[in-house]
């Protein structure tokens, strides 16, 4: 479009139909409303104005347009207009501020009845509550400007006040009366039935309901108060009344006495019948097969548990304690209950906690004795809490009597009999263990048959006790282990005694030795290993000791089949030491140092007819005859035999382990060519070696580990305008917030600066205005003075002229 600005404007206006002929006839009926017309015109005009004033609009050049390929979004600002708007707003604010300058405001207290002395606080509160409710209900329902509302006058803001007091309203008097005299109105309202009832407004209804509920509540409170007062009074007097009542004769007795004796008997019988135990079906006697089946199942479960423990899987849940099979309250201290009924010793049934000794019946004398004690409620037998006390108790009793005495102690202290018995017996089980060891520690060669019998019965008692008092017994075992270790550490072999062997055997006898980890057995294993490795084999006595330990250690592993290197060491060493005519230099095939080369057996010994049994008694003597030594050798060989077939044959290193034994056995066979055992052993080894698969290990046959790959992540909907793709959500939020804060801060600073600038400008304007006014005023005054002066002067001149003219 060419031409000047004005020409273009004219053309545009014409194009929009804003100039030119305005009174063009338009088709009737299709005329749009005038209002709309005007608005549209204004819009069009403003558009045209914008178009013709290019400086009003500021367009940001889009620098990233090329990248995005999207030119539609361009920031457009109208600095002029926004500036003007800001200016206007500031002006308003400034004006308001200026108007408020040098003025002090005051808050008008419009609260109802605040300073009215005639109203009681309750009344004021009631009234306030009412009003508040009203305003709230109104706020919800009506708009502020609805003029149709008839109760506008109730509005607090619209209420007339005088000095902060609500003016008494003629229309309201009735309402107030209603609240106060509701009871009276209730009666009178019926009287107005004839009259057409005025339709009450919602507010009135509400008010009425509220005041009614208030009234009833008040009434209820009053009644309640009265009641509590009465109860309190009664409470206070209760003691007096009761004392009087007690003093008063009982009339009830008389009436009871009046009953005939028959009735009384009848009553008693009825009561007794009620107390009688109902007949209940007894458990069916199980058949032999069922019992066997149960036993089998139980055994299976125990085996399974043992396997689990062997592989180090422990189940700690309450009902899966495996072998112990304890009732839940076993450790929970159910003694309290038992103590309560402790008096009824005779009548009490067998409980789960009872220690049931196998041969209870075999000992009628003892049990009678004990039962008679029970009736007398006295325990003449003290429960020994230390081993010394037990020895004291046993006193002069013969050795044979020991199990009987111990059994009677256990019976006298059954847990059901008295509180604390459980702890006592737990302790006592440890003492039985110590007693067994004590008996084994002394030389009993003279009467070993008796000792054997006594020990066996004591051990069976201990086995039974161990099922109940496992924890106490384990603690004692652990103590003994530490003791043995200490003795061995200070005095080597000479600190040990045969009783230690009995202890180790007992541990295996009582505890499950196949567990992966066991609190008692694992330390025992270590100690056994230590003894096997560190006892210097320089006397037959020590070799016998070691041979028995080897037996025990092997028996420990009969189920788990774990490998004991020390056992291998001991067997090698002892067999080498016992090799007939062993010498320091004649042992190229031996290649390790022995503790003694003096112990070789004579090669004429007969190994054929002997049993490989060793006896603990041998440890009390130091001189051994040939047959004993031969049986020692046989014992070690049988241990080797059993180790091979029990423990070693499945180990991957079986050929390596057996290698040295093989050479040893071949040498032995040279000396004892007629011994079957040796030949059998060698044959067995050959057979097992053939069976064994011995090929290189493939231990590292793992699934190949994948190489971690870090490919860049593909961002869908990538937007270069987005500031960050931070995956951390909270950090992202924080950054956003920070940016916002910065922006706001900048903006506020800008605003404040603008404000101050504006104010300064305004002030200068005012000053200038004032100065101008002053100047104008002064000019006016000067002017008037001048005119007056001029007039006077003229007057004077004229006068002068006149006077001079007259002259």
């Amino acid at each position, binding site marked *: 479009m060419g031409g000047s600005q004005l020409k273009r404007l004219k053309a545009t206006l014409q194009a929009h139909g804003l100039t030119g002929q305005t009174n063009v006839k338009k088709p009737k009926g299709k005329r749009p409303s005038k209002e709309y017309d005007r608005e549209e015109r204004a819009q069009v005009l403003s558009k045209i104005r914008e178009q013709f004033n290019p400086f009003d609009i500021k367009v940001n050049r889009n620098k990233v347009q090329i990248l995005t390929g999207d030119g539609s979004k361009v920031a457009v600002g109208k600095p002029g207009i926004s500036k003007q708007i800001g200016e206007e707003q500031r002006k308003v604010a400034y004006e308001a501020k200026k108007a408020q300058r040098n003025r002090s405001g005051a808050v008008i207290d419009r609260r109802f009845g605040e300073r009215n002395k005639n109203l009681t606080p309750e009344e004021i509160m009631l009234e306030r509550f009412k009003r508040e409710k009203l305003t709230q209900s109104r706020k919800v329902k009506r708009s502020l400007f609805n003029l149709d509302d008839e109760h506008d006058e109730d509005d607090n803001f619209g209420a007339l006040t005088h000095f902060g007091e609500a003016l008494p309203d003629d229309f309201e008097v009735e309402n107030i009366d209603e609240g106060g005299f509701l009871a009276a109105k209730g009666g009178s309202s019926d009287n107005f039935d004839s009259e057409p009832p005025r339709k009450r407004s919602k507010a009135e209804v509400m008010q009425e309901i509220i005041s009614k509920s208030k009234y009833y509540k008040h009434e209820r409170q009053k009644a309640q108060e009265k009641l509590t007062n009465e109860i309190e009074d009664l409470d206070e007097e209760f003691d007096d009344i009761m004392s009087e009542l007690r003093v008063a004769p009982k009339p009830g007795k008389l009436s009871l006495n009046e009953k005939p004796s028959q009735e009384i008997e009848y009553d008693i019988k009825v009561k007794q019948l009620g107390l009688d135990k109902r007949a209940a079906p007894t458990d069916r006697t199980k058949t032999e097969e069922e019992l066997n089946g149960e036993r089998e199942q139980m055994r299976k479960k125990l085996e399974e548990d043992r396997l689990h423990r062997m592989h180090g899987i422990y189940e*700690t849940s309450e009902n899966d304690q495996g072998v112990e099979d304890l009732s839940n309250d076993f450790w929970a201290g159910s003694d309290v209950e038992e103590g309560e009924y402790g008096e009824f010793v005779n009548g009490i049934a067998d409980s789960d906690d009872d220690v049931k000794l196998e041969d209870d019946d075999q000992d009628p004398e003892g049990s009678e004795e004990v039962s008679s004690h029970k009736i007398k409620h006295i325990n003449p037998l003290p429960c020994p809490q230390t081993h010394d006390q037990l020895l004291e108790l046993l006193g002069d009793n013969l050795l044979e009597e020991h199990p009987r005495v111990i059994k009677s102690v256990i019976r006298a202290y059954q847990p059901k009999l008295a509180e604390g018995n459980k702890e006592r017996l737990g302790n006592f089980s440890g003492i039985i263990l110590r007693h067994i060891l004590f008996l084994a520690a002394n030389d009993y060669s003279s009467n070993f048959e008796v000792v054997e019998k006594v020990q066996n019965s004591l051990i069976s008692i201990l086995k039974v006790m161990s099922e109940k008092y496992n924890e106490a017994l384990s603690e004692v075992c652990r103590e003994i*282990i530490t003791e043995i270790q200490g003795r061995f550490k200070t005095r080597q072999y000479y600190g040990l005694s045969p009783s230690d062997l009995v202890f180790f055997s007992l541990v295996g006898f009582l505890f499950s030795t196949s567990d992966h*980890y066991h609190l008692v057995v694992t330390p025992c294993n270590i100690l056994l290993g230590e003894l096997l490795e560190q006892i210097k084999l320089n006397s037959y006595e020590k070799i016998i000791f070691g041979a028995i330990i080897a037996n025990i250690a092997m*028996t420990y592993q009969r189920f788990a*089949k774990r490998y004991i*290197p020390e056992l291998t060491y001991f067997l090698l060493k002892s067999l080498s030491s016992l090799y007939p005519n062993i010498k320091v230099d004649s042992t190229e095939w031996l290649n*390790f140092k022995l503790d003694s080369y003096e112990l070789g057996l004579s090669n004429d010994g007969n190994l054929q007819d002997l049993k490989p049994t060793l006896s603990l008694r041998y440890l009390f003597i130091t001189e051994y005859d040939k047959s004993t030594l031969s049986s020692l050798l046989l014992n070690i060989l*049988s241990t080797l035999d059993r180790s091979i077939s029990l423990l070693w044959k499945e180990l991957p290193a079986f050929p390596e382990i057996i290698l040295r034994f093989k050479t040893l056995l071949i040498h032995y066979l040279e000396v004892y060519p007629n011994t079957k055992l040796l030949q059998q052993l060698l044959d067995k080894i050959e057979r097992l070696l053939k069976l064994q698969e011995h090929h290189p*290990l493939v231990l590292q046959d793992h699934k190949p580990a994948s190489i971690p790959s870090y490919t860049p992540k593909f961002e869908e909907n990538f937007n270069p305008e987005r500031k960050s793709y931070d995956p951390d959500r909270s950090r992202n939020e924080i950054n956003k917030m920070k940016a916002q804060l910065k922006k706001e801060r900048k903006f506020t600073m800008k605003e404040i600066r603008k404000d101050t600038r504006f104010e300064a400008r305004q002030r200068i304007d005012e000053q200038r205005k004032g100065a101008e006014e002053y100047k104008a005023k002064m000019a006016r005054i000067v002017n008037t003075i001048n005119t007056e002066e001029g007039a006077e002067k003229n007057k004077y001149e004229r006068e002068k002229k006149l006077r001079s003219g007259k002259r």
Partner: protein
Amino acid sequence: MLSVDEIKRQCKLIVSGNGKKQYNLLVRLLPVFNEVSFTKDDVDNEGELRHLTISLSQVFNKLFERGHLQVSKCNNEKEKEFVEWCRKLYGIFKNKLLGCMSSIPFENSLAMDCLDVYMKMIEQESVHFASSDDVPFFPNKTLKKLVNTLFCYEYPGDIMIRTGESTNYLWLYFVDEYYKKYVDVQFYTQAELVNAFPEAPCIAAKWLSLCNHDNHYDNESADLEVFVPNPPGAMENESKFKSNFEYNWLYVLNLPSLTEAQYKTILLILHKRITPHFQNPTKLMDFLTDAYNVEKGVTPILALNGLFDLMKRYNLEYPNFYTKLYQLLTPDLMHVKYRSRFFRLMDLFLSSTHLSANLVASFIKKLARLSLDAPPSAVVSVIPFAYNLLKRHPSCMIMLHDPEFIRNPFGTKEENDQLALRKAQYQDPFDNEQLNPELTNAIDSSLWELQTMTAHYHPNVATLAKILSQPFQKLSYNMEDFLDWSYDSLLAAEASRKMKILPSLEFEQFDSLFGGYIESVKW
């Protein structure tokens, strides 16, 4: 025997009297020492003798003070004669003291008192016997006499059998109270011993207890004092001390009477307490090489430490070192006390990555073989050791994992047959008796022994052994964590455990303990 009062009176006369006439009393007092006699474990008249010793020491102190023992202060012939006489008396006194010390064949405090008095005399001498006042002087001849006497003094049972050191109370008293504390005593003792060791059977034992400490003359941290008030400057000569010390040590090391226990003790302290004080430690080379070449026993193991020290610092070359080291892996190794010491050194020697795979494999295989009859503490150090070696020498991994023997579940029948054939034909080529680690063929063998340890009776050892079948992801195990275990520490760890789960019981019933449960054993 004179009574205490008598001794007191006579001594007082000598000390208080101005004249020299009273000195004649000394002639009567001194021979009293000859009367030392003892019944079993007790010296007769011990109190009197002690009193006499102390009193006489005071008397001679007085004499020193008066200058009656100094020839240099004499003016004329007569005085000189008198001083000579006094000195003769003094010499007799010293001899009597030494005689008293060496004549008691059991532990007795009188001898210790004598020793104290004698040392006091040395102090006095250093002041008064100098050529003139304030000239530094140390009475080394007097000290030498004492040391000689002490070296020769012995009584039955004064040598500790285990270490071969002397436990002679008097000797220990001298060492603890004088030798270890005073720098000049050390210097002159060593100087006087050079080429002058007395002929006595227990020299080595005494020498060991003299030198087995950390408070030597030339130790930086040693807290030493000077015994005499004015010692000669020659004493400052450190290299002199070192060469004396070295000379004496070499003399002792060459003694034919050294017992095995003493050998052990020497080797144990060698690298810490001997070589640092030597002028020329390479002189120990022969000794160490000989010890290392001993065929059996722990001696070579102990010598290894000193040898390593020499190799590291003094560039000693030892031919076929690794062969010899391999030969040290004997069945006894796992059962000796010095196992952890040996393992530390072996770890050091085998830490090079430039060793041949054959050699490393031989070491691993041999250790594994030895662990078959080893205590758990040894097994516990063998397993991580083997792990570290395998990790360092991946070519040895074939001992744990031979890919040729993996069964392929998807393989053809032919392949499976081949594998079976390979398995059937396999023979362990490891030669356990071979002494040269390069020729054992261990690399073609496999570590069945270590796999066996997964069935070890100790749960922790068994778990540790499983690391060999797990992926080798750990760079290396810190050997220090595994070396110092023992039965005691294992048991202590067990004893400290709290009872959380109730120990499980044996559910099987046996007829009797012995015969039933434990077979082949009777009561």
